[in-house]
């Protein structure tokens, strides 16, 4: 297994956090991992991203230049990173904020209305978790249970009360991905 992912969105959408959760979960499951964030003043209200490697091999470059997957929560991120994705890779985009899908036919593309689902659940801040759920179900890179385990370690104690809500958001994301798999991607639905 060798997964190189870019999580990208506006600063404040929580892309660094979901990247960290995947990294942490990978570590718990015994994989080699690395996490590299964008940083600095441009993060204020601007775009943020992180690059994550989860691999059964030693991680050589922590910088991801040809991702196997992209999770884009806003349009500028999709525009920037979609061309980077490896042929045969995966793009998950936030269809609540992005009207047109990326113009790539050589990758798998999954639209997730992350903001709408998060709003239904009552908290816009968990849109990132909806996207993460969809990604976990599609990539199978780490299990959802391990991510919840990681959440306990990554989130400060005072925010542990948010875990049940995050669990719901992840579940909704997984559901969206499953529907997509059984409808559009009969070939991969067997992996569910």
């Amino acid at each position, binding site marked *: 297994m060798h997964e190189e992912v870019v999580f990208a969105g506006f600063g404040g959408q929580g892309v660094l956090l979901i990247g*960290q959760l995947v990294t942490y979960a990978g570590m718990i499951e015994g994989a080699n*991992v690395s996490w590299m964030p964008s940083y*600095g003043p441009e993060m204020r209200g601007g775009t943020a991203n992180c690059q994550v490697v989860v691999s059964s091999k030693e991680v050589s470059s922590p910088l991801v*230049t040809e991702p196997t997957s992209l999770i884009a929560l806003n349009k500028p991120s999709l525009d920037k990173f979609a061309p980077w994705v490896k042929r045969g890779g995966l793009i998950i985009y936030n269809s609540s904020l992005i009207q047109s899908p990326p113009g790539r036919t050589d990758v798998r593309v999954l639209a997730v209305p992350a903001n709408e689902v998060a709003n239904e659940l009552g908290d816009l801040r968990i849109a990132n978790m909806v996207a993460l759920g969809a990604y976990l179900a599609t990539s199978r890179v780490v299990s959802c249970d391990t991510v919840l385990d990681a959440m306990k370690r990554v989130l400060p104690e005072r925010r542990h009360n948010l875990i049940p809500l995050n669990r719901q958001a992840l579940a909704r994301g997984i559901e969206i991905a499953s529907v997509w798999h059984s409808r559009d991607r009969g070939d991969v639905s067997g992996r569910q």
Partner: protein
Amino acid sequence: MGEKVLMKGNEAIAEAAILAGCRHFFGYPITPQNEIPEYMSRRMPEVGGVFLQAESEVAGSNMVYGAACAGARVMTTSSSPGISLMQEAISYMAGAELPCVLVNIVRGGPGLGGIQGSQADYFQATKGGGHGDYKLIVLAPSSVQELMDLTITAFDLADMYRNPVMILGDAILGQMMEPVILKERPKQDLPPKTWATVGAKMRPKNVITSLSLDPVKLEKHNLRLAEKYKRVADEQVRYKTYMADDAETLLVAYGTCARIAQAAVDIARERGLKVGLFRPISLWPFPYDALQLTAQESLRVLVVEMSLGQMIEDVRLAILDSKPVCFYGRTGGMTPTPREVLDEIEKIVEEGI
């Protein structure tokens, strides 16, 4: 063996210092290493240590000078522009033979430059950024685990040789997270700090100075330092190789660039190209002999740096004219990609270099 945790490179440096028994930290904020002083401001009070935000890097590095005189294990950290301001104190500490650990999380320069990762401070670190005939021991980690391990080593080397030791990282290493194992420090046999200025109780007074107005004496002092540097060069060379045994093209890279070069080696090998990597870990002392030996069977050497070519001068000194030494670098905070390195390898192989 300790627990495995996911840590940012900068935080790993800070925690490593604490594991190494450092209880005094002086620093001034600068991106991309702010996590170190921030971590220390939380952590030092918990372990009964001192965190002090200095008014500048000039002051911070002189606080280090003072704490080292008082016999403490002490560290300061900064990034390129701040390290430039410390050069005076570094020269004084080298002259007065004071142990301390300095960390440079390098960013793009010159001047105010930018905040993305760079390796353009190699000359400053290894060739003496301050005035006078002196050497720093310079270690270049390339993973978060190594940042931790080498920071601990740095404290021991500083005490062992009574010399400032610099960890030369970069913004990528400082910002990235990787799993680390927090290890107990193996006990070291270190010389007692009988020279420290802690009060002349039941002994003649100690004076720490780098002043020597008599050139005869100053030359003697320099010669004695040179002897010490020779000892360090004999005893503390560090490097690693990766698939170098049968390599026709030998890459030489350190720090983050070594990670990228290693990725390029992997892709090259998949394509049937015999490529390997030599990674200096101690940049001073530079592994001249080891590199020369490793490169013996290869046809060409390609140096990869996040600068316009600084370490390449040491590589040339090691290889001399025995084979071509090529270069690929990006600068100003840009990072070479494995693909770019691979293209360069293919280009020089094709050109028959």
